[in-house]
């Protein structure tokens, strides 16, 4: 995969993101933020590969730290978002 291919994906994703996010109502900005937050924990994939590759001790330690941080981000973000949206749907009855 070349840099330019990666850049293509980046630019297209930015436009998709812009189109969708601008349609999200103010009401949902907090759950959006924590949900988006959880998505940014996608870096967990990289952390898992680095931690699992076991190439050097340093890489393994760094990988472990990264896995912990990214998982906090993913699990915490989705849960917080879920609890909040739960309250919204209750309120919307």
């Amino acid at each position, binding site marked *: *995969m070349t840099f330019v291919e*990666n850049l293509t994906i*980046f630019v297209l*994703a*930015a436009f998709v*993101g*812009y189109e*969708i*996010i*601008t349609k*999200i*109502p*103010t*009401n*949902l900005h*907090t*759950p*959006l*933020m*924590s949900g*988006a*937050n959880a998505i*940014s*924990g*996608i*870096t967990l994939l990289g*952390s*898992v*590969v*680095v*931690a699992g*590759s*076991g*190439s*050097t001790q*340093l*890489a393994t330690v*760094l*990988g*472990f730290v*990264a*896995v*912990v*941080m*990214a*998982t906090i*981000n*993913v*699990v*915490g973000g*989705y*849960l*917080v*978002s*879920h*609890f*909040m949206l739960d309250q*919204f749907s*209750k*309120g919307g009855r």
Partner: protein
Amino acid sequence: MAGILGGLTQSVLQLTYLVAGVFFIQGLRDMTHPRTATRGNMISSAGMFLAVVITILWFEMLSPLVVGAGMLVGGGIGAWLAVSVETTEMPQLVGLFNGFGGGASAVVAGAELVDVLASGGSLTLGLTATASIAGIIGAVTFWGSLVAGGKLHGVVGDSPVSDTVGHAIKVFFFIGSVAAGLFLVVQPDMFGSVPLASFLPSYWVLVATASILGVFLVLPIGGADMPVVIALLNSYSGLAAATTGFVLNNTVLIIAGTLVGASGLILTVIMCESMNRSLTNVLFGGLGSGDDNVEDMEDIYEGNITETSPEEVEMLLETAGRVVIVPGYGMAVGQAQHAVAELAELLEEDGVDVEFGIHPVAGRMPGHMNALLAEADVSYEKMRELEDVNPMFSQTDVVIVTGANDVVNPSANEDTDSPIAGMPVLDVAEAQTVIVNKRSLSPGFSDIPNPLFARDNTSMLFGDAKESMQSLVNEYKESR
């Protein structure tokens, strides 16, 4: 590279990543409506689950225990934080999670450099350049978020250094981190004979300088500007992940990271527009100190302040047909959302038309008031945005402002010299009667007096938001 599914072609991995990317996009699309938002969040988390599982199965896991232990520890901490934290502490929690995402990206980019060198690979321009960017953004996000979270939690105070010194520190460490990044980028060509491993420390120098930069970027920014900061850090955490995707050549990291980057940036712009200030002004300017405002304040308030009591407000409400409640950060601090919601419910039972007028920057993060009111079971249809509620104030009998100040300050419209001139505000004074619930006449974040308090149709209900709203509820109940 051979994991459990490693025998399959790379296409399997890439296709699964594509599916995960689609899940993230669909998840966000469902967020555009409250009815489908919960489903959207679940779709998004399913995408994450899928991406993580295929990664574990596809790549060689020489140390599966390390991975398992890391996920267990991280998952435990994340779940515990999510379950145990009160809604009122949500802004700092969201800030904290942002930080962990950014921190992980910075560490992964560094670990990838270590990995490449250990396996005898070469540091290409693309690798070192993107790793440097990921390192800077990630470290700034991590430390900036910790400071923002600390400020919101009240454990980190204001900047100990003056603005000038602060700016100098920022410039110094920004240049330092960029220089370290450039050093990393140019070294494979310039210092060909020197062992590559000896350049690695420059990545950690970059992370260290960017960390200090992150701290000093956020330290001088005040509480009411936090919605902007939290949204911006949200954007950074996504950008850090996207750049790490460039480092690792991982498409789903780029897609997901970019979506978050866009989301955070849009929220940042909305927050800035709602304050009629530029991003630069929020991040580097700050509002002036209000030394000369004290006299103004006495001039405006002297003899013009009408004080009221819960009993009097209750009588007003008895005859009201339409009531708008305007919440602010004071409602969050006082945890008054349940009392406010109860009052709204009682009024509605008696046929009063009740709505909530919510300013975009009320509170400490985007949508802060909406989240609090939703917690107290207020229907989202009752929460009206500034543009929707402003034309309706002239037909409103009673407005109850609780814990808000700058967002209802008419100076924004009337006084062109005011620091908040041009900021869109809620025109509550158009209503027949305005009740302002506040602990004292002290100025809000912008440190300027609020002429609204001195208006003829405004009465002040002094006291803590929760106590005042609760006594109002009690009065109202008794009179029924």
